[in-house]
Each structure stands twice: as structure tokens, then as C-alpha cells.
């Protein structure tokens, strides 16, 4: 079921991943034995009520956090086997990030922000390549602006240009439209949608409209996988979420 299209290679594979915070009695399990695969060239949305573990799932998948148990493979590499430095290199070369809070470096212009991951990797990207990346997100004329001089939607598009600049095989997006108005949000989702042609996109969101742009939606509840929707539409996603939240609420009421 998870490997429904065996012709496609799996870009990210989580196997029985558990992540616990704290120890002893105060321990909180954010993920409880999650197994999920993300095929190359697909666009997946991860949804769930708050506290369901979706951000933890993203952090573990991206190697930002090490799982308490289970394995994570990115493009076939077991992340547990990598040192901190090798993990940083992997993130730099294979993974792109798009955050809700953009995470642009405020002192750098848009073009320098886009070029930064490459420069951190020791490359000297050409100005033309940087301009092209900005043009691809429709910001060719904003190359010399600092983040503070850009609107939220523009900042997020710079962040997407940055995430794509190193041509990563996986792009993780954490609530990329969370801080944007709906018009800007649509623009950003369109960019992510188009991206799925060349990279695997994993997006955490709580917005059914955003989730509906993806190829499929994974639902999380209480740290476990709670369902899956292929070729989702906004109403179907919303329905599934409502059902999920009712069950979760019912569980809470029962316990």
C-alpha cells in the first residue's frame, strides 16, 4: 500500500520511528512506531491535530532530530550512521527547507540569502544562476532587497528559491503558508506543486486547502499514522480531519 508505485524509488523512508521527549514518568512520546515512505517526485502533505507529532515527523525525516527508536533513510542513507558533520552536509546537499517563519538571514539581500547554502558548502555560485532562481519564483527585480523590505509572501518565495538552489532531492516544508495571506499562500503552493516534478516534497500543514494541492495526505493522530488520502480535495481532507479530531477528542474524553 505504502509502496503503491514500485517503479518509483523511495526518497525518504521512516521505519518504525519512535521519538520520546524527557525520561521516566514525565516522558512524552511524540511519535510511536511510525512507518512511512515518500516516493521520489511526489508531493505529500502531513496533517493532524496539534500535538499529533507532525512537526516531529518532519524533524526526524530531515535529520534535525534523531529518533529514539527506528530508522530513517534519506536517498537510501541511514541517518543514524552519519556523524553530525556528515548530517549537516547531507542537509546542505540533498535537503531543502521551507519554514513557516521563512528563516531568512536578515542582514543578507535576497540574492545572498539564496546563494548562502551553496556558499556554506564551499561553492561559488554565479550571479546568473542566483538571478535565475529568483526569477523562477517571480522575484527577479527584488534581488537586492533585504528581507525586511519584502512582504511575507515575497520572503517565503525567496526561501523557496533558496531551498531549490542546491537542487535538493527532498524539500521539507513546515506550514509554509501559515504566516501568509491566501493569495500569497496560493502562489507558494503553486511553486511547491511545480517542484514535485524534480524533487520529493513533504509538507506539514493544518490547512485543508493547502493539503489538497498534494498528491496524497498522511494523517497523524497521537503520534501514530491515522489514515491516508490519495488525490485529495479540500472537502475530503476537511472531512477526514474533522473525523480525526472527533476521535482524538473522544479518546481524550474517555481517558
Amino acid at each position, binding site marked *: 500500500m505504502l509502496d503503491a508505485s514500485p517503479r518509483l524509488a523511495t526518497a525518504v523512508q521512516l521505519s518504525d520511528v519512535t521519538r520520546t521527549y524527557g525520561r521516566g514518568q514525565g516522558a512524552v512520546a511524540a511519535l510511536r512506531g511510525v512507518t512511512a515512505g515518500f516516493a521520489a517526485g511526489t508531493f505529500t502533505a502531513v496533517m493532524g491535530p496539534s500535538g499529533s507529532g507532525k512537526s516531529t515527523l518532519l*524533524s526526524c525525516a530531515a535529520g534535525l532530530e534523531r529518533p529514539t527508536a527506528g530508522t530513517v533513510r534519506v536517498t537510501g542513507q541511514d541517518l543514524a550512521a552519519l556523524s553530525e558533520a556528515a548530517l549537516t552536509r547531507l542537509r546542505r546537499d540533498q535537503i531543502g527547507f521551507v519554514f513557516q517563519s521563512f528563516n531568512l538571514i536578515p542582514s543578507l539581500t535576497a540574492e545572498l540569502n539564496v546563494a548562502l547554502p551553496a556558499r556554506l558548502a564551499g561553492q561559488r555560485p554565479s550571479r546568473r544562476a542566483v538571478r535565475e532562481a529568483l526569477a523562477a519564483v517571480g522575484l527577479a527585480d527584488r534581488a537586492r532587497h533585504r528581507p*525586511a523590505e519584502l512582504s511575507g509572501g515575497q520572503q517565503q518565495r525567496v526561501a523557496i528559491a533558496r531551498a531549490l538552489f542546491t537542487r535538493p532531492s527532498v524539500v521539507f516544508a513546515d506550514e509554509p503558508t501559515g504566516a501568509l495571506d491566501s493569495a500569497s499562500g496560493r502562489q507558494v503552493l503553486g511553486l511547491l506543486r511545480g517542484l514535485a516534478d524534480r524533487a520529493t516534497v513533504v509538507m506539514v500543514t493544518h490547512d485543508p486547502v493547502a493539503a489538497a494541492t498534494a498528491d496524497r495526505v498522511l494523517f497523524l493522530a497521537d503520534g501514530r499514522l491515522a489514515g491516508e488520502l490519495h488525490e485529495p480535495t479540500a472537502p475530503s481532507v476537511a472531512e477526514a480531519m474533522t473525523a480525526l479530531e472527533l476521535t482524538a477528542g473522544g479518546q481524550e474524553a474517555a481517558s
Partner: protein
Amino acid sequence: MIALAARTARARAGTLAGPFIALALGTALLSAVVLNIIASATYGPGQPHWFTRPAVVVAGADSVRVTTVSDGDRETEAMRTQAARAVPPAAAARLAARMQVLGVPLVTDYASPAHAAGAPGATVHPWAAAGLHRYSFAAGGPPAAAGQVVLTAPTRLRPGQRITVQTAAGPRQLTVSGVIRTSAAPALYTAGPLAAQLASHRIAAIALLPRPGTSPAGLARQAEAATRGLDVRVLTGRDRAAAEPDPDADLAVVAIAVLGTAAGLAAFMALFVVSGTFAQSVTARRRELGLLRAAGATPAQLRRLILGEALLIGTLATLPGGLLGALAAGALSRWIARSGVGPPGLATHQALWPVAAAAGACVLIGLLGALAPARRAGRIGPAEALREAAASRRAMPVTRWIIGLLALGGVPALLAAFAAVHSADGAALLLPMAIVAILALVMLAPLLVRPLAALLAPLAGGGSAAGLLARHSAVAGVRRTAAVIAPVVLTAGFAGALLAGNSTLYRTQQVTAASRVSAPVTVTAGPAGLSGAAVAGIRSAPGVAGAVPVAATTVYVRSSDSPEEWSAQYAGPGIGQVLRLPVVAGRLADLTGTNTVAVPAGTWRLGQVAQLWLADSAPVRLRVVAVYASDVDLGETALLPWGLQAGHAAAPLASSVYVRMRPGARLAGVRAAAAAGGGQVEPTRQYLAALSTQQQRLNDAALATILGLALLYSWIAIGNSAAMGTAARRRELGALRLIGATRRQVLAMLGWETWLGTAIGLLLAAAATAVTLAGVRICLAGISAGPVLVIPWRPIGLAAGGALAIAELAGLAPAIWALRRRPAGLGGLAG
């Protein structure tokens, strides 16, 4: 708003730790300095050591007074002189008569310079004076005959030995009759008549011994009645110590001047540092302050919030600060005593009010320092809460422009002042000059960050990603960079300007002074000075063409409405042949008799009568017979005729003798004559070098005290602002890690950025030093030897290097701490 301030302060402990530390240390520093200023101001000789047994001591006057009358108000400024006048013979006679009637025994004490090789002490007293304090015989007994002497332990000399004693009347052969142990200052004792004769019958003091049934106070009233109308001091109790010579009394005045300067500098720095840290905390909280505005707070309320915080933090900081200051005061006084900047016995007493005063000053400094940041907080709009606002747009607010340009305008004004002073007094302008130059540079620093950062780019990470980030970050966050720069400019600027300025002035003065002495050889005196007989011996030694004695002394001159201390020299006849002075009017050859004087231009004209006081506070009227240019080493320096010394000292003694030799003559004869008089022969160059090293040491110690305290403070300030700068950027550092920067790259960026800020600060400090040195150069222009540029690289390097090391350490440590976790925790991804 104060209540809100208290709440937000608690929640914002992180960003307010900076101002708190700055204010606590400011309080500590100021309290320690104020406690020591009070200790120096109240420094007295303490308990008497010589006059322990007499009930009352009568001594000559020892102060000069200047009284001014303006609009019927009389104001008197008094100054204690180096030495006291003799007790007038009339007073002695009247006291003797009155005390005989009362049956009170009295002792007449004479003191004159004398020294015996191998025994401590440099004065000789009549044997009766030994009874003025407790003593016991270590060996032998009292001097029974005129040719006998009693010495003070510890000495290897034993009763019966014949020794040579250098006295004011020349060398005497005396026989040791005994050695005493006493806690009074060591001295030599001879039979009364000889001691009186050696002192030219100049009475040092008359001691009235206690008599059963008469209280010291009653006896003092009797003594006062007997000496009414005569210029004497009648002393009882602790005051008796005032009749004993106290060589350290001058040092207390030095200590007060040094500590006063240190306190001023410390307060100036504190104001800067506190203001900087408050500004940093406002910047770090822009978002929060914007939220408050959005929630309905008025700009005035935000201003009051920041000022309320300043008041609260200032008050809280005074507690640990005052405590620390009280503890540090002892260490400071020990340093002052050991370094020679203050009297050796200096000790502070714990007192609340000086600490409270320092604390009050610091609370005030806190409020003043928070004024500008509070204004800025008031200008934050509600929209700031929604914006990423790390890159502040307006780097140069109006206040910065105004203060910066005003200070810049002060620079040419002070350069003109340097030109007008044209003497060693220029030293007094060094601190104002440094303050003005540094203030201007610090205030205008945001304008200079971009060009200087571009200039320094090749030295700051070059093309690496870390270097690029560092440069952009430094230029974009101009305010943050300026906050790092300011304490560096203060530290290195003051160190550079004051050290290089003082050293250059001082060295030039020394070199010029040395170039004036044309005599190739100098005979320096032993502890007792060179007597007239010894000088005569040197003058008549084979090969000597001329020998001119000089004796260093002090005169007091009326300067507007207070007495002022000048240095002076009694100069023997023929001084013009051994000193090259730039005489502009009159002739040095006329400096004869007892009523002439040679002075620097500016105070008196040739032929005028100069009214001044001699070192023993005696007023004299002297005719100006020569005027010389008020050169760098000659300002406030008078030359007195040799003959004037008699009557104002026990005997005319030389502190050194300048000797001219006949061509080809050997020094052996002079050496023998000098040795006979207790002196020794030195090449003049070597003698002057030793003299200047000694003075340079005191000069250096004074500067070290002033700068040391300021440096200590500003180093901490540097660490403080670097740490605050890093702490405010944890989010940004986390974002960098998320987009693929390794831990090392993030640290490298911070390191380069700190280095860049520090390097810009050091460049500006160098500029402040250069401007100050330009002032010194103008001040010294046209003097005979020309300015001698001296830059003490070692201490300046220490100040600058210390600043860099501390900034790097303090900037990187919190980053290392923050980065020890994985990037997700920092970037706010996990949520």
C-alpha cells in the same frame, strides 16, 4: 508603569543582565574610588611617633593663605607647605619664662641634616629630644661630651667607635657613646650645644612635658597666651604629629588627584556602557515593545517603562555593587600605597555614606544612560511586532548627530588650547582631548562602519561564507556593531591617547631638561645633602673649572585666589655657566644676594617685585633679575639665589653640584672631594637619566591607576555587549544551522564579526590617539629639543589585545552553549 517594569524586568532577565552588570560594577568601582579619596583626604600623620611624651608641642607655622575680598565676602584658601618655619626666638624666650613660673619642664628640639654611614637616620637632634619618646639603650649611654653621638638601632656601630658624620657644617669626627632602640623615626643625637649649633640655632619645636595637676588643654592655653601675636602652632593630642616631618603628606594630594581623575573617567565610561547596554536591550525587545504598543500602550508609557526598568535595575544593582566596592576598596588602597601614587599607610575605613553616594551616582547614571534608548523605545510602532526587524533602518538618530558633531567641533577648539598652553601644562588637556575625540568617533561610528568594513574585508574572512556573513551582518546591524565598537574605542582610545600623550610630553620634557645642563659631571649628595664645606672642597679640587651647587625646593605663588605650588631651585653663583637657559630678559649673573629671583615669562616682568612664599611658608619679596622662556620644562619653575636658603633651612645644603672640568683634567680629585663630603660623582647624563626613570615610574603608576580602573571596567563592558549581541541572535544562528551551516561555520561567522567590530574600534582608537598626539605636537612646537614621540606599545597593545580576546570569548561562549543542541530546537521548527 513601574509595576509593569518590575514584571517585564523579571521576565526579561536575560536582556537586562547586561545593564545590571554594568551598573553593579560601576557602583563597585565608584565606591572603591570614593572610599579611597576620602581616605586620602583625611590622611594625616596619625599618632605622633617623635613627640609621644610631651603634653603640648609648639612649632613654627607651616601654611600659606590667600585671602580674597569680593563684594565684602572674605574667602581664604590655605595650603600646607612642605616644611615648617622655625619657632621664633621671642616665642622660645616667652615660653621658657612662663613655663619656669608654672614649673613645667620643657625641651627645645633642634633638627639639622646629618648622616653617618652604617646608621639609620638623616637628622641630628639634641640628646634631650630622646626623652620626647620612649627609648631604651641597646648599648652604651648618653653623649657626655661635645664630641660624642648616640645612634639609633639597627646598626653595627658600637660605643667607642670613632665615625665620620656628614653634617650641615661639613664632616665631623665623633665618637659613638651609645645606641638606642625606639619606635620614633631613627635619628642621631649629640650633646645639646652641638645640635643647636649645627642647626644654626634654628628651633624646630619646643616640647612642654606633662606636669601632675595640669591638663594638656590647660597647658596649651598657657602656651597660647605666652606666644600670642607670634606665628606658631600650639599642638596637643594627635595633632602633635603635625610637628613631625611627614614626607608622605604630598602623596595624599597626588592620590586625590589621581583618584579624582579615575573616578571621572570611570563615570564617563559607565554612562556610555550603561547607555549602550540599555540600547541593546531595547533593540533585542523591539518585537515585544511593538506588541505592547499594539496592545494599547502609548509611546510615553513605553518610555516610562524603559526608564522604570533603569531605575529598578540601578537600585537593585547598587546592593551587590556597593558590597563589592567596599571589598575592593582595600585592594585599591594597597595598590595605591605600593605603587607610590599615595602614602604608604593609606587605609580605607568602611563607611556607608560614600558607598551610598556612589550608588546614588550610579542610579543617576543608569537613568541618564536609559534616556536615549527610552526615546527610541517610544518611537517603536505597533507594526514592529509583525515585522522581522533585526536590521534597524535608521542607524544615525538625531541625538547621535548632535552629540557627535558637537564633540567633533571640540577637537579644533582643544587643538587651539594646546597651542595656547605651549608648556608641560598641556598634560591637563590630554584627558579632555581624548574624551572629545573618542566621543565624536563613537557617536559617528555608524557612519564609518560600512567604509571601514569594506577596507578590512580582506582581513575578515575574505571570500569564505562565514566572512561574507560576518561583513554583511556587521554592516546591516550597524547598531549592534556600534555597540561592540564603542567600548573598544573607549578602552584602546583612552589607553592610547593618555599613555602616548603623557609619555611624549614627559619624555620631551626630560630630554629638554637634560639638554639644558652643560656641565659634564654632577656630584650627587648623600642623605644629609652636601654642606658648604663639601661644595668648597669640590670647587677647589684639582682639574675643576667651576662647581655650582643647586638645591631643589618649593615655592608657593599666588594664582588668582589660591596658592599654587611651583618647583624651584636655589642656585649657586655661576649657574649661567652650567645651565643653558633661554633667558629673554635680564641676566642670570644678577641672581645674587637674598632678594632676587629668576622666573619664567608670563607671571612677572623684569624688575618687578615678586611676592611669594618659600618652602617653610615664610613670605618673601624678591626682585626679578632674569626672565626665561616658559618652555616645556621651565613653566612654574623659579630660580632662587643661594644666599636666600640660610634662615629657611638649618643650613644651606646642596642636593647636587654641577661641575665643569678643565680640558683634559681627570676626575680623581673631584671624586675624592665628593666622597669627603658624603657625595658621589656621576656623569650628568647618567644622573639625569636615573632621575627621570624614578619620576617616570611614579608617572606610570599614576596612569596605571587611572587607566587600570577604567580598563577593568570597559573590558567587562566589552564582554557584556558581545555576550548580549550573541544572545539576541540565537534565532538567526539557528536558522543558519537549518539551512546547512556547520557549527564551525556559525562560530567562524561570529568570530569574524567580532573581530571586524573590534578592528574598526581599534582603527578609531588609533585615530583618537593620533588626534591627541597632534595636540601634543602643537603644544610642544618650537621648543629647543623638539617633541620626542613616544608610543608605549606594550600597555596599549595589552589594552587592545585584551579587548579583542574578551570580545571574542564573550561573543563565542554563549554561541557554543546555544549550538551544543541540534538545530531544530533553535530554529523553532519543532512546534
